[in-house]
């Protein structure tokens, strides 16, 4: 069932002025919000529809969105906050940027519906530091929505009041982690909080908060327009709907595509023009740099949904960030770069992560420089295992995962480096 493209979050892609309110309205934008708030659709009904749709968080963890929305204390009186996570910085991920620049109003509408459902009046969209142009596009969309009476007090003449603001990051991968992001909104260093308490109890400014990814929010208007069952049927078991895939690296045409969940990987690869320069596929990281690498022959058997990537691929769908590596890729050098990234971006709060990421990187670097020892491979495994599960947030595990999976699948390349002081690809 891989027929349709750009059907949900990318509805406006390809139309003139895709980011404008006029274009968004031309595809039915804000109709759902209007119906919900004028007919006062009960929150329970909205949540039931989201649950039926099978929508799972698109930020990487895949947590069921309908369920998350029930965690917010409905009758809490006092401020509550809604937060959109557009701090996309996981290497290989660039989908939210395209929603921001081509269809910002759908994020706004999805957040407004979420706010109505959870009884929230104020929300923030946290936008990654390096995409300034998209931040400005989003700010313009907010202005347009305010002028049109779609944000602010008494929206469309109802008693629904909702204010949404953009918060711009300034260069810290860790702020993608939801509690670091909350700290950052508060004007602090982006250091993750201990959980519990979870954001639904203690979030932005200490108030109950819900945080979802950009693509998650942007999927909501479609679901409520066409029904949960419709969205569910676009995908496969346990993976309802469509998904944006960011395809980068060694392909002819790196791109984002929105397709039905469950598309066979070879078809997805073909959408990006296939492996570049007529070369052979060596490996794929299917969900962003923090998920295990998958060798080509296994990857070619996978379909692009949560279950297949786990069960067949031994990896994770993550944020749908497909990094393609051809036969010339030096896996030791690639791991060296990734390990440096996690070392550089560790916030430094937990000893196993702060020390461990530095240690991993130095050992991988030593091997890449031709000065490695055979014991280093066990050492890397050991250090990785000692980080996993011993830290405040998942960045520690994220640093260990590439190390463990690269060595597992490409061990001979590492051994060759150690024995010969250079890559076997140049032999």
């Amino acid at each position, binding site marked *: 069932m891989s027929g349709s493209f750009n059907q949900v979050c990318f509805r406006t892609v390809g139309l003139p002025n895709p980011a404008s309110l006029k274009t968004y309205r031309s595809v039915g934008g804000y109709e759902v919000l209007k119906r919900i708030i004028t007919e006062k659709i009960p929150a329970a009904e909205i949540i039931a529809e989201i649950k039926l749709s099978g929508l799972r968080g698109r930020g990487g963890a895949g947590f069921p969105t309908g369920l998350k929305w029930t965690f917010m204390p409905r009758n809490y009186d006092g*401020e509550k906050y809604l937060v959109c996570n557009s701090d*996309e*910085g*996981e*290497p*290989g*991920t*660039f989908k*939210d*940027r395209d929603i921001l620049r081509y269809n910002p109003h759908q994020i706004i509408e999805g957040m407004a519906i979420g706010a109505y459902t959870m009884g929230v009046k104020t929300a*923030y969209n946290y936008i*990654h*530091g*390096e*995409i*300034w*142009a998209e931040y400005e596009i989003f700010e313009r969309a907010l202005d347009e929505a305010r002028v049109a009476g779609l944000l602010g007090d008494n929206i469309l003449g109802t008693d629904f009041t909702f204010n949404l*603001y*953009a*918060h*711009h*990051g*300034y*260069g*810290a*991968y860790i702020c993608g982690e939801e509690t670091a992001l909350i700290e*950052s*909104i*508060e*004007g*602090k*260093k*982006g250091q993750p909080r201990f959980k519990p308490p979870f954001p639904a109890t203690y979030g932005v*400014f200490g108030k109950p908060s819900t945080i979802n990814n950009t693509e998650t929010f942007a999927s909501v208007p479609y679901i409520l327009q066409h029904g949960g069952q419709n969205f569910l049927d676009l995908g496969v078991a346990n993976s309802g709907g469509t998904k944006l895939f*960011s*395809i*980068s*690296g*060694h392909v002819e045409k*790196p*791109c*984002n595509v929105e397709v039905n969940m469950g598309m066979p990987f070879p078809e997805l690869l073909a959408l990006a023009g296939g492996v570049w320069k007529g070369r052979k596929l060596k490996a794929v*990281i299917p969900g962003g*740099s923090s998920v295990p690498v998958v060798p080509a022959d296994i990857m070619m058997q996978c379909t692009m949904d949560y279950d297949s990537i786990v069960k067949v691929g031994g990896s994770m769908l993550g944020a749908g*960030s497909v*990094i*393609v*590596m051809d036969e010339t*890729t030096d896996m030791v050098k*690639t791991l060296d*770069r*990734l390990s440096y*990234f996690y070392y*550089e*971006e560790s916030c430094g709060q937990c000893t196993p992560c702060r020390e461990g990421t530095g240690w991993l990187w130095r050992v991988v670097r030593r091997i890449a420089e031709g000065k490695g020892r055979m014991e280093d491979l066990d050492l890397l495994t050991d250090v990785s295992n000692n980080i996993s599960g011993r830290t405040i947030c998942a960045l520690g595990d994220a640093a260990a995962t590439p190390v463990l999976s690269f060595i597992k699948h490409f061990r001979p390349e590492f051994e060759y480096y150690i024995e010969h002081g250079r890559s076997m690809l140049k032999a």
Partner: protein
Amino acid sequence: MLSKQAIAKIDRELSKYPADQRRAAVMSALRIAQVEHGWLSKEAIADVAAYLGIPDIAALEVASFYNMYELEAVGKYKLTVCTNISCMLRDAEGIVEHLEHKLGVHCGETTADGKFTLREGECMGACGGAPLLLINNHEMREFLTPEKVDVMLEELN
């Protein structure tokens, strides 16, 4: 000293947060000050802190935590090349080497005429446009080739 224009911009940011949460605007206030001066001196950071009514150290902590703030003077144009995985696979290293050669500096350094600072950066969430770089944090150039880099340098010179 923060200029009148900077204060107007900071006030707009402050309006996004509850009145008793002025600290929440520190990231944008620092960014606004940096755009004005090119980098963040101790004085600029103290001015931002004073305006928001927070301790200097709270503003300094933020300025040193996030990668895009500069705590020392940089060239007129700071060029940050992403060298993370998706960009690396499309020869970001070649772009860095070309820039190093053309500018006569290594990554992390500033040209003698104070015009360019060269940096390596982490994933910018734009991997489909690899290889790519940022000019002064806010302007992205994608699908780079050595030829395109040359044209860009001409334009900036």
